[in-house]
């Protein structure tokens, strides 16, 4: 077989494949072009999942008729003139291949009316072959229509999903774009039916609420400014956390990007308030100097290389923490959910340890509704302070502490709260130096497998900080020589704990970065050391625990992300008893 140069059309098709894998890819490129053209209103129509039609109409600057031909040629762009300009890329579609790529795999029509030109123009591209520019007149802006996408690449067409699924992907892409450009109006129409219409010049929080469906008052504002960059953003309250990272939108210099490290920064900021595999929806607009970021890493530009990654990481983490600290984080239970939980979690008959007198007391407390007795404008202060208002504590099944606060019934999971407390104290202590470690009389042998033994040298510095000393004994076995005094006092056995820890390290359940792994290991320690559900606490222990609750910053969730406290506001009770 001889080697020949590829025909031109084929080269374009291959290039197109990198950018335009499916209709959503085409839509993304076209919308980015529209934003670059200064559009304030963009409309996207698709038909048959984008296969028979993708149309993007904008009110941007437009393309002059004599530049239309150039616009649809490969690697033509108005945005970069020299290689040096690559260093200062601020616009989206700099690669100059979007229109050409789409033209290579569809029947493309571009119609545009330029502000400066008298007359607009129209050009058609079919299977990569350019037609002549013809006159066209319309409103200022550009309309790009791609029909019969992938008609000349059956293999690609075969990989498309159902029209419904493809339309959903286009919708997701557009929602991400709507978040990336909150001031641009964006309307989306599928097969003639409007899916959404986000108005132009919307307030950013309104836009985030509209796109994510999260109420405005559940969104926390993020803000930070440092040498490495600037950040503004919205973060949904932790109770909106869901699995995966799909709810997280990072917009770097106006470009939606994917970046595991920055996403992890959000999670770090939320540490202790969410389960480790979840994240609440968040939209972060980050601006960094263009020369501090390399966006030309990947054709879809979704991954970038940051020069000040670690500075941005800590900026984001700190901004998230600040926002959470400022917010009142005790999750309020929505009413219907509360009804369900009560039905399933409480026995049908009253628990025997609620005496009639205390039940009666409870009722008077409710009917005399503290909220209505409040002097107008009197502020009871933040919830975390009102523990002092506790009058009596009901301990349910040696697991839950039920207390009364000024305007709510508060249920605390004793294990979760204690765990949270231990975590904060351990973290504080580790910050001041190595944890005191108790040498063991007889090293405790552990079977951990060869892989874990290999990891030992890498983990030893962290283990030493935590007061754990492990020595290798042979292939797959090791021995614990020292163990933190604290864990021994809390009756945690060295062998099983270290085995568990190392097996998590081997199975990559622990993050490889020492700082992140530290917190995870402290989580483990706190959990093992904490009092358990079912442990009967003495009055002194109860008092101590509740006193600490006040002192612990963000004490509303245990490190595993389970809530520590549930508040049932009196209004909810009143509503349930039809008093409202």
């Amino acid at each position: 077989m001889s080697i020949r140069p590829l025909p031109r059309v084929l080269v374009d098709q291959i290039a197109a494949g990198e950018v335009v894998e499916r209709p959503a890819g085409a839509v993304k490129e076209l919308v980015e072009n529209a934003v670059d053209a200064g559009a304030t209103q963009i409309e996207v129509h698709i038909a048959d999942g984008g296969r028979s039609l993708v149309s993007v109409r904008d009110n941007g600057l437009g393309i002059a008729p004599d530049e239309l031909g150039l616009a649809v040629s490969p690697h033509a762009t108005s945005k970069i003139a020299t290689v040096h300009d690559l260093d200062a890329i601020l616009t989206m579609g700099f690669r100059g291949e979007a229109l050409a790529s789409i033209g290579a795999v569809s029947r493309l029509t571009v119609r545009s009316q330029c502000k400066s030109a008298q007359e607009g123009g129209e050009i058609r591209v079919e299977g990569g072959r350019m037609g002549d520019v013809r006159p066209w007149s319309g409103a200022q802006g550009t309309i790009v229509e791609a029909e019969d996408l992938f008609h000349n690449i059956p293999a690609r067409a075969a990989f498309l999903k159902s029209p419904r699924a493809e339309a959903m992907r286009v919708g997701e892409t557009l929602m991400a774009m709507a978040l990336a450009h909150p001031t641009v109006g964006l309307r989306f129409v599928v097969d003639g039916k409007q899916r959404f219409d986000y108005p132009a010049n919307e307030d950013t929080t309104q836009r985030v609420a509209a796109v994510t469906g999260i109420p405005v008052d559940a969104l926390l504002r993020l803000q930070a400014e440092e040498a490495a960059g600037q950040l503004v953003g919205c973060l949904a309250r932790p109770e909106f956390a869901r699995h995966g990272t799909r709810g997280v939108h990072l917009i770097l210099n106006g470009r939606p990007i994917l970046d595991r490290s920055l996403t992890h920064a959000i999670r770090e900021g939320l540490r202790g308030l969410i389960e480790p595999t979840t994240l609440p929806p968040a939209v972060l607009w980050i601006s960094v100097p263009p020369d501090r970021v390399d966006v030309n890493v990947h054709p879809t530009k979704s991954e970038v290389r940051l020069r000040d990654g670690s500075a941005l990481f800590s900026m984001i983490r700190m901004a998230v923490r600040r926002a959470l600290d400022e917010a009142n984080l005790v999750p309020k239970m929505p009413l219907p959910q509360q009804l369900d939980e009560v039905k399933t979690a409480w026995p049908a008959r009253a628990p025997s340890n609620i005496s009639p007198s205390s039940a009666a007391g409870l009722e008077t407390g409710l009917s005399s509704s503290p909220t209505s007795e409040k002097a107008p404008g009197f502020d009871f202060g933040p919830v975390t302070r009102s523990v002092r208002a506790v009058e009596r504590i009901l301990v349910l099944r040696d697991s839950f502490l039920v207390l009364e606060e000024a305007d709510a019934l508060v249920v605390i999971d004793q294990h979760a709260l204690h765990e949270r407390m231990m975590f904060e104290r351990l973290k504080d202590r580790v910050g001041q130096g190595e944890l005191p470690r108790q040498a063991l009389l007889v090293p405790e042998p552990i079977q951990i497998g060869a892989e874990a033994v290999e990891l030992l040298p890498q983990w030893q510095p962290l283990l030493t900080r935590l007061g754990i000393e492990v020595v290798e004994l042979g292939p797959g076995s090791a021995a614990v020589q020292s163990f933190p005094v604290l864990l021994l006092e809390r009756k945690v056995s060295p062998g099983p704990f270290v085995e568990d820890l190392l097996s998590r390290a081997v199975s990559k359940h622990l993050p490889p970065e020492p700082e992140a792994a530290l917190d995870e290991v402290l989580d483990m320690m706190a959990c093992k050391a904490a009092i358990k559900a079912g442990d009967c606490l003495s009055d002194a222990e109860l008092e101590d625990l509740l006193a600490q609750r006040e002192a612990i910053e963000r004490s509303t969730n245990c490190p595993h992300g389970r809530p520590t406290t549930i508040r049932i506001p009196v209004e909810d009770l009143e509503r349930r008893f039809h008093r409202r």
Partner: protein
Amino acid sequence: MDGPILPVETTMPSTATAMKIVCDRTALADAVSLVSGVVAARSPSPVLQCLRITAGDGQLRFSATDLEIGVAQTIDEVDVQQEGEVLVPADKLSQIVKASDDPTLTLEAEGDRLRIRGLGSNWSLHGFPVSEAPEVEDFDESITADYEVPAVILRKQIQRTLFAAANEQSRYAINGVLFERSGQTLRCVATDGRRLALSSCSCEKTTDQDGNTIVPSKALQLLGKLLDARAQGEVRVSIRDGRAHFGIGHGSRNATITSTLVEGSFPPWSDVVPKDNDIHVTMDTSSLAGAVRRAALLTSQESRGVKLTFSAGNLVITSRAPDTGEAEIRVDCNYDGDELSIGFNPGYLTDALKIIDSPEIILSLKGPQKPGVLKADGEFIYVVMPVSLD
């Protein structure tokens, strides 16, 4: 035992259980509280939370079991008017007997009920059929005990070791005290993996068979209490059928504790006791104990450790709790070497210092990362591992 203990299987006519006795309340309270110690706080079976009282032959026998440990005790401060038996909840009986201020109490069984009468008080306590109670053995006097130890000595052996025993689920073999008998020597050893207490005494050999037995902590706690009350005579120890049997006293004032043994092999303690510690400091027991206690005041759960710094003629004990403060306690000692610092969990030191009754102890060290050894009166050895402090 020569009491009229009827076999469990015997179905007795209701009149046979109609016991009636008048008993000295203090003796009754002591016996009830002691035997109740075996009863499990939480048990699925209410019968296992009961105490069995048997009146007969001029004495009163109390027995209870958690199925692993059985305790039986007799008292003779009683006037048995009618022999019989009853099975009643231990905690209620104990509360009643303690709450009463009468010098004597009258106990009458009526079926499964126990009527308790004082001068102006009258309780009727619901019980269970005696036939439901598991059998609790008495020390079998017909079998020769393996060895005998004076009660005061055995009590000391327990005091000096039991505190160091583990209370862990994962390392079962150290959840008890090793009784190692070789010839005329009985060594008791306990460890929780961080410290080890060893106490030796001589025993009266009655059989030739040496042996190692691990006795569960709970059984020894009960035995310790029993010996606190009756530290006279010899305690007969017999290991057979996978159980340890301790027999105390004879006749109408006897007591028996039987217990299952802890399975597993105890760590080889002789490897653990260091032989090359070459720094020896003799110290006044109570002043060292006081100094450690004072320094321990400023330690926290996260930073439990005191630092002992020896310099010529001087020991300085320091501690630091990050959020609370620091302590520095100075004690005189006969140390004359180079400056040496070593950290310990203060709790481990005080645990041992408070059970040592000799006025002086010897602390032997090797270096900051090596185990320390406390020795007293040639019979007590306590190995304690150091804590590394910043």
